[in-house]
């Protein structure tokens, strides 16, 4: 395992900090009860573990603990946010207009597509110009603003792309949405733990993020952090330890949205991951990824047969293709050398279409906190030989 070079952090971070693994193990040993389901010490210990993670996440993302909803992953959080807001929005009215960006992951696009097919929303895509060799904030804001209609109720967009290092100006989009009374749902799958995010000051209605990427927690963890006053329809109903004699879910967040037993050991690991990120410093992590991303991008740009997509965007996600090879062939060659990347479409048909990658997709190298210069150099050595 030690010979592997892991450059797939956009999929999930690896390795996890030892404190994360210890927190999972300790929780399984000492907090084995079901949180919020009893009053015995093991149940209360599990509840305490859950709450301390909510407190840490709330502090990191500018909310309060009861606005931190645990989910299985970002996709789960996005489905809850999008369908929950759409459900509230459709009450007493017909369909409404929703905007998403041209770089969205299927975690955003597919729930929206389904709502559009069902006639609940009218979906429109705005441009984000990821390949433009200039600052794009104003262009993006103009593209978005020009598409807002009187019946626009929701904007859904990623903060940072999962296929290149393009970033959307979320704070400015949030200001726009707040002025227009539009809900803003943000997919922070690639930015949580790498960029500062503050749900209320950025005008975000629902912030959806993974626990297992930049926040260094175990897989099976994600969060939906609600903006102040935001309320959703539920995605799932069931037991949550509150008001058990009633047929309907109680209105109180977060339990309203957390039917069924939570993944306590994984959440304990996430709490340790949040502590790790706080200790390392988000700015330091971002700079580390930016520096290594630049090294990888610049190295690839020097190879004649290589095309780098969105080469002007700075960050830890680098997308490229190699003339004469399919993306999967390049991926397999790198696999064979023990270099872990991801080839194909990265669950983002919209993004690949926007970047005009080849018909078989492209190869993504993505850096993380544990990445080293020699990892990048090792990957470049293999690609140069193609």
């Amino acid at each position, binding site marked *: 395992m030690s010979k592997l070079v892991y450059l797939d952090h956009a999929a999930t971070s690896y390795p996890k900090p030892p404190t994360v693994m210890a927190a999972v193990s300790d929780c399984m040993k000492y907090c084995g009860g079901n949180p919020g389901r009893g009053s015995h010490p093991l149940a209360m210990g599990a*509840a305490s573990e859950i709450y301390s993670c909510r407190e840490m996440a709330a502090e990191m993302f500018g909310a309060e*603990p*009861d606005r931190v909803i645990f989910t299985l992953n970002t996709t789960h959080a996005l489905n809850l946010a999008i369908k929950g807001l759409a459900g509230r929005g459709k009450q007493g009215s017909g369909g409404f207009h929703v905007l998403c960006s041209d770089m969205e992951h299927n975690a955003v696009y597919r729930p929206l597509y389904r709502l559009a097919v069902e006639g609940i929303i009218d979906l429109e895509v705005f441009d984000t110009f990821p390949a433009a060799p200039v600052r794009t904030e104003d262009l993006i804001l103009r593209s978005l603003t020009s598409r807002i209609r009187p019946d626009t109720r929701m904007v859904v967009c990623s903060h940072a792309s999962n296929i290149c290092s393009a970033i959307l100006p979320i704070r400015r989009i949030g200001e726009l949405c707040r002025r227009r009374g539009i809900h803003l749902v943000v997919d922070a799958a690639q930015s949580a733990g790498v960029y500062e995010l503050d749900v209320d000051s950025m005008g975000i209605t629902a912030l959806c993020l993974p626990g297992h990427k930049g926040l260094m927690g175990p897989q099976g963890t994600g969060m939906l952090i609600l903006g102040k006053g935001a309320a959703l329809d539920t995605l799932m109903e069931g037991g949550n*330890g509150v*008001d*058990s*004699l009633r047929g309907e879910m109680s209105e109180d967040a977060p*339990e309203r949205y957390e039917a069924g037993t939570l993944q306590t050991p994984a959440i304990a690991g996430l709490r340790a991951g949040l502590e790790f990120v706080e200790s390392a410093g988000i700015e330091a992590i971002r700079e580390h990824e930016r520096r290594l991303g630049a090294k990888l991008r610049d190295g690839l740009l020097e190879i004649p047969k290589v095309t780098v997509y969105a080469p002007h965007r700075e960050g830890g996600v680098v997308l490229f293709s190699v003339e004469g090879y399919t993306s999967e062939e390049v991926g397999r060659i790198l696999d064979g050398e023990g270099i872990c990347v991801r080839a194909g479409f990265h669950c983002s048909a919209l993004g690949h279409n926007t970047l005009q990658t080849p018909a078989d997709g492209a190869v993504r190298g993505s850096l993380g906190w544990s990445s080293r210069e020699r990892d990048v150099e090792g990957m470049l050595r293999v690609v140069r030989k193609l």
Partner: protein
Amino acid sequence: MRRSNQLNQTGADTDSRRGTGASHSVGTCTAVIGSMTRAMKAQALLSEAAVRASLVKVSSAQTTGGCAYGVDFPCTQRANVQVVLERAGVRVREYLQV
């Protein structure tokens, strides 16, 4: 089973068996909140306000909807508890006196 007497919003004892004018300033009171998370938030807020509060699962016999969590605190702190929780937007379903 816990035995509690219901208090009204001003903190007055509403259990007629205790007699009019009975003081609730001694003993333990419970703020019934509902979810575990909100009860823990209440406990943290009260702790910051120097009110000693402990998390409890309220007896189902004393709630209308079934399971609920809350915080126990000294009844002498009843007014402080109400101010702290109201200011933080933590809704208390009812106050009980043990």
